[in-house]
């Protein structure tokens, strides 16, 4: 059995990679993927902590996080594709105004 500290370390590193992508890129699609990476890092901590504590609630939380992430991907990708078709760019710096 792998120690729980290794899972937590891996999750922290994954979260850092996601945060780096979110902070340093300005393409909306890449930022979206980074958010998914951060969500999955948190999922890993949930599962590891739930296993360590002998509690099933961690896996239940992962279930709901996955569902919400799926809903977010469906709507967010539709929005990004729609914006790209309208404006021809997906850079968040070029999408600074709210009016379509």
């Amino acid at each position, binding site marked *: 059995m792998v120690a729980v500290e290794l899972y*937590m370390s891996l999750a922290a590193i994954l979260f850092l990679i996601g945060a780096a992508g979110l902070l340093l890129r300005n393409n909306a699609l890449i930022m979206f993927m980074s958010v998914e990476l951060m969500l999955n890092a948190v999922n890993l901590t949930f599962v590891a902590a739930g296993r360590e504590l002998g509690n099933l609630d961690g896996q239940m939380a992962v279930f*709901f996080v996955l569902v*919400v992430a799926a809903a977010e991907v469906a709507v967010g*990708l539709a929005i990004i594709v729609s914006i790209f078709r309208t404006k021809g760019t997906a850079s968040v710096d070029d999408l600074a105004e709210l009016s379509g």
Partner: protein
Amino acid sequence: MFIGVDRAEHIRERLPFQRQTAAAALIVLVMLTGLMLRSDQWSWVLPEGSGQEANGTIEAIGSRLIAGETEEEAALGIDARGWLLPFEATSILLVIASVGAISLAFYRPRRIASVERLATPESPSDSGGEG
């Protein structure tokens, strides 16, 4: 062509020093995480557990979802509420998300629709385009 991913990113920024600030925040975050990983003080992340591994079988998860605590946990005096209300709220969320995604897929701004109609005058007008 993949939603602009292959294009070079703009270096010029709308907000001054935006990228430098982000990089500095990232460096601080990396240092904090490194400090946390090096410290070996996991007690504030993970309290002392029961040492008993949770069996993540489908059966156990389903009974936790619907009925709350399992029999062993009830014998131990653990009172766990079920996850039934979040489960039902999730179904509403999924319905809203699917409706939103479908309506966004069929939505076409009037400007683009008219351009497409001009480009292909022989094709009948798109019935789904008037979202």
